[in-house]
C-alpha cells in the first residue's frame, strides 16, 4: 500500500535522523524545573535548529524542510527512540510559529521566527481561563485598545513552560461589547512586561508543569496582534487543530513505557503469567494500532486541520495512555510506596505519568468535547 519510491526516501530520512540523534542527542537530560534553568534545553534546541531539525514542517525559506506528515512522523518516532529531551519550545514550533507564518505580517515574521527557532524566545500558550475550560469562547481576559497600545488584564491558566518562557500568545477579548467567539484577538505578549505575573500550579503528581499567568494592565503594542483585531478565534481554531493532530507523539514512546511495565511485571514474578500476558499484550496491540493509525493519517495528508482525524487522535492516545499507566499501577501495587532512601526513579516517574495521563484526558480539549466534535461534525448527528 506504499510505493517503493516513498519507502526508499523515507528510509533514507529515517537513517539520517537516527544517526544524527545517536551522535548528538543528550539522553536523560533533567527537566528545566529540575535543573533550575532552561539553558541546556535552549542549547539543545539551537543544535537541532543548526542541523535543520528544529521545525521540519516549516517552509524551507523559514528554517524548515517543508516536511510532509509522513516525514514528520518518522522524525518523531526516531526522536522518541533516541530518548532525546522533551521539546521545550513545542508551543512555539507547533502553534506560535505556524500562526505567525500563516497570519503574521512580514515584520512579525522577521521579528519572531528566527529567535523562536534559535530558542532565544521560548513561547507559551494563554488560552484557558479559570472559568473558560471546555467553553473557551467564554473567555474574559480583556484588552483595552488605547491608540497603538492594548492594555491587557485578566488571568490565564494551564500554561506550560510559563516559568521560563519569554513570550506568551494569548487570546484576549479586545471588543468589550462582544461575547462568545467574536471580538477576540490573538496577542503576543512579552513575558517580561510589567504586570505579567506567573504563579506555578502545584499538581497532584508533585510536579508543576503548569502555571497561572496574570495580566495586570499589561501594555502591549498594537503591532503584537497577529491577524486583525477580532480574528483571534479563527486563528485559535486553526492552531488547536494543529495541536491535536498526529505527529506530536508516536507509538515508540509507548514501547518504552511497555518495556518498563514489563520490568514491573518481572519484579512481581509475573513473567509467565497468562493474565499479565493478556493485559500487556492488549497494550502492545494498542501501541501498534496507534502506529498504523498515525501513519495512515500522516500519509493521507489530512492532518493539521481541526476535524475528525485530530479528534480521533486526541481521544485515542489519551485514553490509551490512561489504560497503559493504570495497568502499570496495578502491577506495582504496594511497591508504589518506595523506601525513601532507595527510590527507584522509574517507579516514581510511572506514578507521575499516570496522573499526567489523567490530565491528558482533560487538556487540549477534553475528551467529552472530542466526542461531541466527532458525533456532530463527522457522524453528522444533530446538535
Amino acid at each position: 500500500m506504499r510505493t517503493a519510491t516513498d519507502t526508499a526516501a523515507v528510509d533514507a530520512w529515517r537513517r539520517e535522523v537516527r544517526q544524527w540523534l545517536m551522535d548528538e542527542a543528550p539522553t536523560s537530560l533533567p527537566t528545566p524545573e529540575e535543573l533550575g534553568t532552561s539553558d541546556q534545553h535552549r542549547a539543545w534546541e539551537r543544535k537541532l535548529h543548526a542541523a535543520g531539525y528544529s521545525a521540519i514542517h516549516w517552509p524551507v525559506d523559514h528554517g524548515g524542510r517543508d516536511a510532509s506528515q509522513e516525514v514528520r512522523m518518522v522524525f518523531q518516532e526516531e526522536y522518541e527512540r533516541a530518548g532525546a529531551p522533551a521539546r521545550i519550545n513545542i508551543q512555539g514550533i507547533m502553534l506560535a510559529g505556524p500562526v505567525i507564518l500563516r497570519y503574521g505580517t512580514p515584520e512579525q515574521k522577521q521579528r519572531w521566527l528566527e529567535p523562536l527557532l534559535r530558542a532565544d524566545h521560548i513561547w507559551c500558550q494563554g488560552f484557558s481561563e479559570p472559568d473558560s475550560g471546555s467553553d473557551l469562547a467564554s473567555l474574559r481576559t480583556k484588552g483595552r485598545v488605547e491608540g497603538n497600545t492594548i492594555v491587557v488584564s485578566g488571568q490565564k491558566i494551564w500554561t506550560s513552560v510559563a516559568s521560563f518562557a519569554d513570550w506568551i500568545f494569548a487570546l484576549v477579548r479586545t471588543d468589550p461589547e462582544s461575547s462568545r467567539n467574536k471580538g477576540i484577538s490573538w496577542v503576543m505578549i512579552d513575558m517580561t512586561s510589567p504586570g505579567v505575573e506567573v504563579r506555578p500550579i502545584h499538581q497532584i503528581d508533585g510536579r508543576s508543569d503548569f502555571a497561572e499567568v496574570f495580566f495586570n494592565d499589561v501594555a502591549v503594542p498594537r503591532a503584537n496582534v497577529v491577524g486583525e483585531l477580532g480574528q483571534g478565534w479563527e486563528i485559535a481554531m486553526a492552531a488547536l487543530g494543529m495541536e491535536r493532530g498526529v505527529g506530536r507523539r508516536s507509538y515508540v514512546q509507548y514501547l518504552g513505557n511497555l518495556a518498563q511495565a514489563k520490568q514491573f511485571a518481572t519484579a512481581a514474578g509475573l513473567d509467565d503469567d497468562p493474565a499479565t500476558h493478556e493485559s500487556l499484550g492488549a497494550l502492545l496491540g494498542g501501541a501498534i494500532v496507534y502506529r498504523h493509525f498515525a501513519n495512515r493519517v500522516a500519509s493521507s495528508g489530512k492532518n493539521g486541520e481541526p476535524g475528525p482525524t485530530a479528534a480521533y487522535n486526541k481521544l485515542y492516545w489519551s485514553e490509551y495512555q490512561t489504560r497503559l499507566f493504570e495497568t502499570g499501577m496495578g502491577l506495582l501495587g504496594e511497591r508504589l510506596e518506595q523506601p525513601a532512601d532507595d527510590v527507584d526513579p522509574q517507579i516514581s516517574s510511572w506514578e507521575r505519568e499516570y496522573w499526567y495521563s489523567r490530565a491528558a484526558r482533560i487538556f487540549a480539549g477534553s475528551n467529552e468535547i472530542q466526542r461531541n466534535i466527532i458525533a456532530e461534525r463527522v457522524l453528522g448527528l444533530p446538535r
Partner: protein
Amino acid sequence: MSVTLTDEQRDFGELAREVLAKVGPARDLLQERDGVARRGRWAQLAEVGLVSATVPEAHGGLGLGARDMALVAEEVGYFALPEPLVETACVAVPLLARHAPAGVADAWLPRIAEGRAVVTVQPPGASASATFGQEADLVIVIEDGGVALCPKASGRTVSARESADVLRRPARVEPASETIRFGDAQVAAEVTASATAWTAVVLNGISRRLLDMSVEYARIREQFGRPIGSFQAVKHMLADVATQIETVRASAWYAVGIDDQDLEARIFAASVAKWSATTAAAAANLNALQVHGGIGFTRENPLSLWLVRGKKLEALWGTANFHARILGEQLMQADDLVEAFGPTLAEQAA
C-alpha cells in the same frame, strides 16, 4: 511503512461496493434465510472481476496483489456477503499460487478465475468449521503440518454446523485420507495468519456498517420530541465506536499488505489486526443494538444480520483475548521492545 490506499485500490473498493449493494443478502433477508440463496451471486461477483482479481494473469486472472483487495474485503463485511469471496480470492489464491504443487495450482487457479470454483478455508483445531463447507468446490483444511485440499468429489466428510448466522452455512470438513496435501507447519502458520488478518478486515467492514446504521437510525428515530442522536449519551456512544473503528482499520490493512515480510512479522501483525478489530467490533455491536433499541433485536430488521455475523467473526480465527495473549508472549520474549516492535531500517526489515 505507510498504509495509504492507492487510487486504484479505492476504485476497486468502490466497484465492490456497487456490486455488493446490488447482490448482497440484505435486500431480501427472509428469502435468504429460507435457503433460497442467491445462486447467481457468485457469478455476478466473478463477472466484475472480484473473484479473479488476485489470480495471476497467466492463469486467467487480473494479477492483482492481495493487498489490492483490502477495501473489497471491508465491503464484504459491510454488505454481509455470506459467500467465501475473501477466503477464495484473498486467502486461497495466494496460498495456491505460492505454495501448491504446480499441477494443483494449474488445475484450480483457472477455474477460480472463471468463477467456476468456490473455495473456502477451515481453521486448524478440532472444533473449527468452514464457511460454505458443504457447498464449496474446494475446502482447504489447515492441519498442523500443512494444508489438505478437499475438492467436492474427494470423499471429504462434511458435517453441518448449527449457527445463529445461518447464511454463512458453516460445516466441518474432514479430509479423506488420500486427499492431496502440501506445505508444512510454516505454510499452515502462514495461511492461518493470512486468514486471521483478512477476517479482521472483513470484521472492520461489519463494524463500519453497524456504526452507519446506528447513525442513520439515531438521526431519524425520535423520542421525547427530538432525534435520539441529539442526546449526548447516544452521541458519545457512537463517537467512541467511530474512534475505535477508524483507529484500527489501518492495522488490518497493514497485516494483509506485508506478504513480503517474514512469517513472524506477519503472525504478529495478524494478531494486532484481529485483536483490535475484535475489540472495536464488540463495542460497535454493543452500542448498535443499544441505539436501535428493541427493533434491532428482531430478525426482520436487517441490523440482526450484522449483529450476528459480527459476533461470529469475533470468535473465529481467535478471540481478542487469544490474540492479546500472543502479543503479550511476544512482548515478554523480546529483549528490547523498541528494537523488536519499533521502526526498522530497510535492511533490517528484510
